[in-house]
C-alpha cells in the first residue's frame, strides 16, 4: 500500500511541478527512462533459469492473455457507452488505448475529433491510475486477471508493480501482453476510426 501511495505521490508531484512551473520532462527523456526500465526488467527476467524455453511454453498463455484483455475491455466499453453521451464506436475507440494515453489521445484527436481524443487521453490515464491502485489487491484474487487491467502499460509503467505483485512467470506474460497490445493499439484505433 505504501508503494502505491509513493507512486501516486510521484505522479502528483510531477503534475504539480508541470502545472505550476511549466517544467516538462522531454518526451525523448521519458523514452530513455522507459528504455532503462525495460532493460532492467529484461535483466531481471533473463536471470531466471531456462527462461527461453519458458517463453516458448508461455506463448499460448501470452496470446490468450492478450485476447482476453482486448475482449474484456471492448465488451465493457460497449456496456459503458449506454451510460455515456458517446456512441458504441466512440466509446470502444476511446478505450482502445489500453492505457497508452499519449498515443490514443493524439491519434483519435487527429483521426476523429479533439474532444474524443481528450476523453480517450483521460480515460487511459485513469485506467493506468486505477490499475496502479488496484493491481496489488486484484493480484491476490488472480494474478493474470489483474495483469489484464494494466493493458498496454504492462510492459512499461506497470511492469515494476507487476513484478512485485505477481510471479516471475506471470511478469513475463504481462510483458508479452504489453508488447502485443502496444503493437495493436495504433492498428485498432486506425481500424475503428477509418
Amino acid at each position: 500500500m505504501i508503494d502505491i501511495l509513493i507512486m501516486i505521490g510521484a505522479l502528483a508531484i510531477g503534475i504539480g511541478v508541470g502545472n505550476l512551473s511549466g517544467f516538462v520532462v522531454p518526451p525523448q527523456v521519458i523514452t530513455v527512462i522507459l528504455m532503462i526500465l525495460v532493460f532492467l526488467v529484461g535483466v531481471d527476467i533473463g536471470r531466471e533459469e531456462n527462461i527461453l524455453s519458458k517463453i516458448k511454453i508461455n506463448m499460448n498463455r501470452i496470446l490468450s492473455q492478450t485476447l482476453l484483455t482486448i475482449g474484456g475491455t471492448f465488451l465493457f466499453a460497449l456496456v459503458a457507452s449506454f451510460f455515456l453521451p458517446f456512441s458504441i464506436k466512440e466509446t470502444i475507440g476511446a478505450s482502445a488505448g489500453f492505457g497508452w494515453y499519449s498515443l490514443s489521445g493524439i491519434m483519435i484527436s487527429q483521426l476523429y475529433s479533439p474532444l474524443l481524443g481528450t476523453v480517450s487521453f483521460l480515460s487511459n490515464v485513469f485506467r493506468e491510475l486505477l490499475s496502479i491502485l488496484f493491481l496489488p489487491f486484484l493480484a491476490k484474487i488472480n494474478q493474470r486477471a489483474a495483469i489484464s487491467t494494466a493493458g498496454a502499460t504492462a510492459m512499461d509503467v506497470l511492469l515494476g508493480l507487476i513484478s512485485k505483485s505477481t510471479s516471475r512467470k506471470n511478469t513475463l506474460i504481462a510483458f508479452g501482453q504489453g508488447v502485443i497490445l502496444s503493437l495493436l493499439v495504433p492498428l485498432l484505433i486506425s481500424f475503428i476510426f477509418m
Partner: protein
Amino acid sequence: MIMLLLILAAFATGLFLGLKKRLRFLAKIKIIPIVTLVLLFSMGTEIGQSQEIMDHLGTIGWNAFLIAAFTVAGSFLVTLFFLKIFPSKTGESDD
C-alpha cells in the same frame, strides 16, 4: 513505432545480459522501483503542463473515468471468467 522498437531493443538487450548472468548486482540494489518513480514523475509533468488537459479534467473527466472503470473491471472479470472456465485452453491449469 520507433519508440516501440527502441523499447523492445532495450528489453532484448537486458534479457540477453540477464541470460548471460551479467549485471546480477542490479537485483540487489532494487533499482526498478526507483526508475518507476522517476517515470511517473516525468509523466506527471507532461499532464500538469498541458493546460488543455487540466482545464478539461473536470468537465469530461467523469466520462473518461467511467470508461476507465468499466474497462478495468471488464478486463479483470472477463479474464478471470475465462481462466476459470477454460483453464486448459488459457494455460491457467498447469500452474
